[in-house]
């Protein structure tokens, strides 16, 4: 089992530890609801050091990434972050990730899902004809997410960093003697404003403690999941995978079909022209119950789809879910979810389910 440098800190905070794809990670400290609401109302702090960081450099880096990723990498500026995909030749999603432009000429960082990191790295290495330099720095890189309306004040107090100085989906390097070189990025997976911070392992415990001292609430992966679900952000492995395309998942904003080529492009165009049979959308339950992954959706007794992620929204206090539904089903229609042997009424609703502080995920 793998551990982040903060493992002992989590245990010291009485965290409930779970196995997350081979990582011993905190799922909650005091409770998922309390941590969720702390992030919505004040500030949550998440250890996401399990995430993978793949560095791509040297002269061929831009053209290589443009070949492998679905967005156009060439117009990216220094300090810009973009949400994008690695696709297989069939247009299926190998992983969703963010690409950080450190130097447009030759230096980028990919932040990838922990569970997919080794697969992603192998995939990139196997296609690296341009002889650019690929380095997996995940084992040495820690990552914190500081999210919520109070994140700005806490950043200012702890790091003398002004959040408002950077736009959404931008990052900046910031060096502080006590915490080393920090890459501070105005991004997140919660719908709240705030930052994600990359740093070397050695300083992360000190920075974590400093954030907590200034009022950030330690939050586990449980609330990270309910927060992203309220915003409708997909989770790879649940809502998207190698058998789903970005179009079915309604994530076309992160695909640039104007590019001459990228891995999976031809298959995607064919897939799009054939017409989409199903689409990822959201459900809000009209009755009590908790929708879960695998629950079947019905319309007039006919199976029309299946839930890929579901839980209770701590803000709405209602069951919410992401699901693939037959393309004939439109928004605001009433359907049923089969929860064990009970049929529960639900309304088709395109997420976000709650208004976040920010408007778009990329």
């Amino acid at each position, binding site marked *: 089992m793998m551990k982040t440098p903060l493992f002992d800190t989590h245990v010291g905070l009485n965290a409930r530890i779970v196995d997350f794809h081979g990582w011993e990670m905190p*799922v909650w400290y005091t*409770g998922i609801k309390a941590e969720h609401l702390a992030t919505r109302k004040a500030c949550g702090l998440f250890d996401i050091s399990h995430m993978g960081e793949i560095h791509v450099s040297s002269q061929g880096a831009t053209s290589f990434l443009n070949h492998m990723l679905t967005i156009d990498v060439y117009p990216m500026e220094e300090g810009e972050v973009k949400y994008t995909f690695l696709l297989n030749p069939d247009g299926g999603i190998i992983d969703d990730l963010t690409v950080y432009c450190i130097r447009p000429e030759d230096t980028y960082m990919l932040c990838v899902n922990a569970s997919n990191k080794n697969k992603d790295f192998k995939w990139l290495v196997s296609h690296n004809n341009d002889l650019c330099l690929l380095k997996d720095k995940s084992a040495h890189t820690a990552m914190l997410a500081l999210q919520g309306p109070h994140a700005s004040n806490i950043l200012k107090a702890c790091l003398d960093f002004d959040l408002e100085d950077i736009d959404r989906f931008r990052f900046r390097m910031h060096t502080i003697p006590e915490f080393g070189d920090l890459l501070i990025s105005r991004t997140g997976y919660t719908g709240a404003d705030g930052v994600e911070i990359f740093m070397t392992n050695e300083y992360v415990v000190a920075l974590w403690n400093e954030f907590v001292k200034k009022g950030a609430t330690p939050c586990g992966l449980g609330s990270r999941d309910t927060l992203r679900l309220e915003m409708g952000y997909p989770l790879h492995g649940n809502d998207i995978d190698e058998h789903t395309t970005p179009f079915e998942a309604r994530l076309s904003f992160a695909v640039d079909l104007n590019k001459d080529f990228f891995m999976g492009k031809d298959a995607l165009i064919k897939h799009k022209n054939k017409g989409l049979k199903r689409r990822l959308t959201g459900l809000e339950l009209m009755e009590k119950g*908790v929708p879960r992954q695998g629950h079947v959706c019905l319309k007039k007794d006919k199976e029309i789809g299946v839930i890929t992620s579901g839980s209770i929204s701590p803000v709405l206090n209602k069951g919410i879910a992401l699901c693939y539904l037959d393309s004939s089903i439109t928004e605001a229609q009433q359907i049923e979810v089969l929860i064990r042997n009970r049929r529960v009424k639900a309304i088709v609703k395109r997420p976000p389910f709650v208004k976040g502080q920010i408007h778009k995920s990329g």
Partner: protein
Amino acid sequence: MNFPGELKYTKDHEWARINDNMVTVGITDYAQQELGDVVYVECNDAGTRVEQGGVFGTVESVKAVSELYAPVTGTIVEANKTLEDTPELVNTDCYGDAWMIAIELTDPSELDNLMDAGKYETYVSTESK
């Protein structure tokens, strides 16, 4: 963790409060802590027959779904409807307001299959290791 001495316990982490032939049932402090924030409780209705060790309902937290098992055989005489609207009582008052069902038991000898508080506490400490 709190395991009141006057109650009996099952291996599935239900407690039973015995009053003559009437048995009130809920889940233990250990169970509610393991589940985390409880968001949904569903129990069979009054009049339903249950078997010792048989499922009488479901409890769900944000993260997990767990079945509820009857500590004794008998007929459910009452299900606690307040939990439909306030499932969080399971976290705040698991031995009190968050009782789940009351069963009229048919065979008092079944009570011998349940653990007392001391035995249950030992059982929990071995299970959580």
